[in-house]
Every structure is written in C-alpha cells, then in structure tokens.
C-alpha cells in the first residue's frame, strides 16, 4: 500500500497541474481561438498563486485569485479576436509577453521581503483529493463539450464561425464562455503547479515553459478532455520519475529528460493512425481571422 500512496504523492500534483491546464487549453481552442498566450498566463498564474497565498496565508486564496485573473485574460482574448478581425497569433504571443512581464512585477515586492512559501498540505489525502478534483473537472468539461448545446456551439464556432453564426450561435458570447472556462482551468492548473507540485522559494520566471508543455499535452490528445488524462498522466509520470527511469534504463539524465516529450510525440502518432483520428482533428477555423462581413465562398 505504501508504494501506491508514494506514487500518488509523486505524480498527482504534477498531473493535476498539467491536466487542468491542458484541458483548459483544449476547451478554448475548440472554439476556434488559437491559444498562444497560454504560457504567459500560466507563468502569471504561478506568480499570483505564490503572492496571494503568502499574503492571505492560505493556498486556496492563491488558487481562487489565479483562476479569476486567468479567466479575465481568456475573456479578453476571446472578445478581441471575435469582435475585431485580429490575428490570433499576434495577440496571443503579445499577451504571452504581458503575462511573463507581469509575473515578475507581481511577485517582486513580497519576494524581496521574505523567503517564506505557503502551499497546500503535503499529504496523500490532499493529493488524492486533488487527483479526483482534476479528473472530475475534466469529465465535466468533456460532458459539456459533447452533450450540451453550449458544447455544440463551442465546436460550431471552432469549425466555422460564419456558418455557426448563420445557424443562430452568438459566436462572441460562446467564445467568451469558452475563454472564461478554459482560462479558469489554466489559472487553476498554474496555481496547483506552484502550490501543490513545486512550492519552492519563488524565483523570477517560475513555471515558464510549463504552459507550453500543457499545450503539447493537450494537442497530443487531440484536445479531447478524456484522452488528455492519458497524455497528462504519461507525461507527469515520466517527469516525476525521471530519476527512477535513469536508474532502470541506465541512460544519461539528459536522455531521460527527453523521454516525456518523446512519449508525447509517440502518443500523437498512435492517435493519428487509429480511427480516433477524425475525432481528434483540429477545429477547422482554428486561428483564422474572423470578420463577420467577409465574403464567404
């Protein structure tokens, strides 16, 4: 039994962080918005979680505020690219830089006065709770996407916003909801990344790059919330156990570091040669500039 709790404690926090972020990414991109701001907002989420948890004295406050601010970013991006014919790539990457920059500024005052860190409890009970919480959220997202009118509207907006609008979808509202939901999860994931997975004394740029990793985890599973469980678990599992791998395989640490990424690539190949392929195709209008009065031929 001990080894079970050990594994859960080793993998669950990383899993929850990557999984929630990846699901959030998938939900947002399903609505047709290319989400390149993810890493910036993730990094900002980490900084906010750290700062707020420390100020409020409880990790939960950190998660809540990170969720709210990230969701605001999501709504903003969705509004801009849907209301105006704006390049998704340009606004996404610009906001990524905003996120990077603000993360340093947000955490600066408190980081310079204390080395303390407030985090979630280090217990297997908490970790199991976190694991269940993350998966339940993912399943709910899946349910919404597949079974509800909202989900159909999100998918319609992602496939063809012009046709969706003609069918009676309020594309703007739909994408804003997708942005709020998606980025709420991303903010939550970022907060768990710091407060549950790696609560070390804060240094500038902490968490950077992990948004991209979640991006890859999501795409490796074709943005499908249930399949993402597998890709996130494989990734988090390999990442948390790289030293074990190194021992077993007798490989250089640099090579074992690559394994999680190589596994993600392998997962994509496997998904694409199976009949799942159709379900996992990217939304057809992903990243396409949307101008309502465009000549659609």
């Amino acid at each position, binding site marked *: 039994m001990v080894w079970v709790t050990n594994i859960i404690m080793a993998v669950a926090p990383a899993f929850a962080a990557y999984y929630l972020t990846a699901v959030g990414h998938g939900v947002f991109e399903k609505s047709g918005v290319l989400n390149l701001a993810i890493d910036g907002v993730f990094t900002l989420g980490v900084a906010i979680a750290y700062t707020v948890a420390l100020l409020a004295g409880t990790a939960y406050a950190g998660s809540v505020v990170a969720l709210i601010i990230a969701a605001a970013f999501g709504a903003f991006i969705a509004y801009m690219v849907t*209301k*105006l014919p704006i390049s998704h790539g*340009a606004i996404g990457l610009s906001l990524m830089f905003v996120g990077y920059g603000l993360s340093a500024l947000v955490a600066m005052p408190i980081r310079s006065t204390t080395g303390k860190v407030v985090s979630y409890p280090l217990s297997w009970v908490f970790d199991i709770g976190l694991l269940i919480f993350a998966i339940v959220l993912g399943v709910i997202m899946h349910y919404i996407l597949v079974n509800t009118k909202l989900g159909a509207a999100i998918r319609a907006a992602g496939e063809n916003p012009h046709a969706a609008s003609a069918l009676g979808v309020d594309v703007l509202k739909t994408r804003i909801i997708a942005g709020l939901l998606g980025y709420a999860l991303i903010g939550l994931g970022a907060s768990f990344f710091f407060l549950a997975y790696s609560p070390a004394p804060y240094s500038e740029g902490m968490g950077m790059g992990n948004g991209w990793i979640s991006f890859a985890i999501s795409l490796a599973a074709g943005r499908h919330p249930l399949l993402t469980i597998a890709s996130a678990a494989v990734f988090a599992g390999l990442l948390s156990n790289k030293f074990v791998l190194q021992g077993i395989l007798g490989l250089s640490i640099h090579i074992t570091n690559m394994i999680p*990424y190589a596994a993600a690539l392998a997962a994509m190949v496997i998904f694409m040669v199976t009949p799942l392929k159709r379900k996992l195709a990217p939304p057809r209008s992903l990243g396409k500039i949307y101008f309502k009065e465009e000549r659609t031929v």
Partner: protein
Amino acid sequence: MRLVVTRRIKPLKFGGIIIPFLSIILGVFLATIALYALARVPPGLVYSSIGVSLVSPQMLQTFVMLVILGVALIIPFNAAIWNIGAEGQIIWGMIASAFIGLCIAVHYIYVSPSAAAQYSGVPGAFILPTPTATGKEVVAKLSMSPQAGVALMLILASLAGAMWALIASLMRAFLDIDEVATTLIMNYIAYYLYNYVVYGPLQGVTISTSGFGLSNPLHPALQFSRISVSTTATWEGVGIMIGVFIMAWFILRHTTFGLRLRILGSNPNALKAAGISVRKYIVAVLTISGAIAGLVGTIFFAGNMYQLMKIKTITTPPTHNIGYTAILVSWLSMLDLRGVPFAAYIVASLFQAGINLQASLGSISGGAMISSGALTYVLIGFVLTTFTILRVFSEYRIRIVRGRG
C-alpha cells in the same frame, strides 16, 4: 446600442504611420502604469530608455536574428504550416556548427607548457586560455582554411536545422499530425540533446570545461567579425540576413514555388486539382524554414557564444527564446515579407529598452530586483498588444448601431 465592425471602402490615410506611432505611445503608457503600480519603476526612466534604444546600435544583433528568423517563419506561415520549432532548429544549428568548429575544422593538441610556447605566433594555432586537468596546455590548430571552416559550419548548421524540421514535416505530410504540437515538443527534445552533447561528445578538454557542461572555445580564426559600432552584431550575420531576405523575396514573389506555397495556405484543393503534390510542398516549406533557422545557430555560436554552455533550466536556453519571439515578428508583419524588417526593428528596440532600463534601474537602487528580461517582456507585451489591436483600424472601422434587433 451595438458595435459593428465593417471594412473601410478605402484604407485609412497615413494609417501605416499613425497607427504604429499611436500604438507605441499608448502601449508604453500602459506599460509605465504597470511598472509603476506594481514595482515603483519611475516613468521617466522608462521613457528615456525607450528613446535611447530606438536608435541604439546595440540592438543590431537582435534585429539581424529576428529578420532572418522572421523570414524563416514567414515561408511556412504563408502556406499555413505553423513552424513553432525555430528554437529547436537553431539549437541543431548550434550543435552542428560546434561540431564543425570544434571537431572538424580544428584539432586540439595537448602539449607540455614548454612546447606550448613554440606555438605562440604560429599561424592557425591558438593556445587555450586555461590548461587541462593534467597540467598540460592545449593548442587549437586549424585543419583547414578558416573560410572553408566557416562555410562548412553554415552548411552543416543549415542541414541540421532542415533535418530537424523534416521530421515534423513528414509527420504532417504523411500522418496528418499537427505540426504546431510536434515542432513545439521537439524544441524541448533539442534542448536536452544540447545538454547531452555538452556533457558528452562536445565536452571541453581543459580543467575549467571538463565536467562542467562546457565545450572547448571556438578558434578565433573561425569567429565572426564584429561590427565596431555594435558590441554584438557581426558582418557575417548582416550578410546572411541580406542574402536570406533577398532569396526569400525572390522565391515568394517570382517563382511558382512561392506562389503555390501561398495558395497552399488558402486553398490546397485548388493545388490538387492543378496536379500539384501538396505533400511535397508541406515537406519543402518546413525544411526550408528549418534550414534558415539553422543558420541562426551558427550566427549565435560563431558570432556571440564561441562555446557551448549547458542549459541550466529549460526556460533559459542559449537562444534566449528568440525562436518564439520571431513568431511574433512574423505575425506582426502580417505574413508579408516587407513587414518583417519593420516588425523586427520594433521588437529589437523594445528588447534593448528592457536592457537599458534595467541598467539604469540598477544604477539608482544599486542592484535591481527585476531582470532585464522581465522589463523587456512588459514593454514588448503592452506595445505589441496595443499595436495588434489598433492596426485593424487602418482597414476596418467601428460603427455604433442604435435600435433594437
């Protein structure tokens, strides 16, 4: 009351000048507020560092690399193939140049300290600054002409970048696997490969390099020549930039290949019906993009780094993430080649502004708490977000519609 966006009958007069200008003012203003509110950075300092950096020769090197990479990315982007993997392709370029520069074009010989003296002044020989673990000196000796060495470095770097992109392109062309994800993931693999190489095959031989994740230093004869006004830019880099730009302009504007890759971006079906293999084009555009990005690896290695140094954390690669920044450059140029230098100029000056700002902050408070990177990010982020949003108003306008639906 509702907002409706319609296309202007004629583009806004002078929009091309007014809008960037307004964006910079508004964006800098927003950045200043954020900097002051969150970190008490004096606004005056922000304005002066930006003013200085717009005309600073220091940003030349960033500009050169951003132009080359902007061109490298614009080629596949026009074909709607999204290469997010310039980072990895640059890293492969670095490794390949290091392999040529450190193993093929030069050999390193152990000599006793007395023998080392013999080599001083011998053409093509260079005594490494620090001795080996065994107390012996190391002399780097050219095994070919430096011109040939440099040429080989560039060729192999380009091939290596192309090869790395080729993998993703084949997966896209034959298995239909999203290249955004594969090229991104492969960046991380490349970073770790780089670490593997500096601890393995390319590990240096002197006491200060061996076991520390450092390679030998590059022989001075193979190093690019600095442009004197700039502390970082090199003549070779500028030459490559001009060459790449002209080549890309010719391909995109004057060849059927360039035309068809643009059509691939908007209507691949039309290409198929015309009898053109879409797969070949997907593979070609991505490999060309990787080949150009690979060259930047050489510019980094032979122009600035001279030595491979391990990556401590995955977020601080030797590329300074310029492969990602370049994505922004190509999108800012609206995938139009002519816009690349302009976009690169803005981004490079903002980069420089961050560095300048940090330096002046440091001189006031004696050691700033915020890195120049973070300051740069704030500036780039706010200015370019504003620009991205405002630019649509040169072609579109917002109307307020009253009345009920």
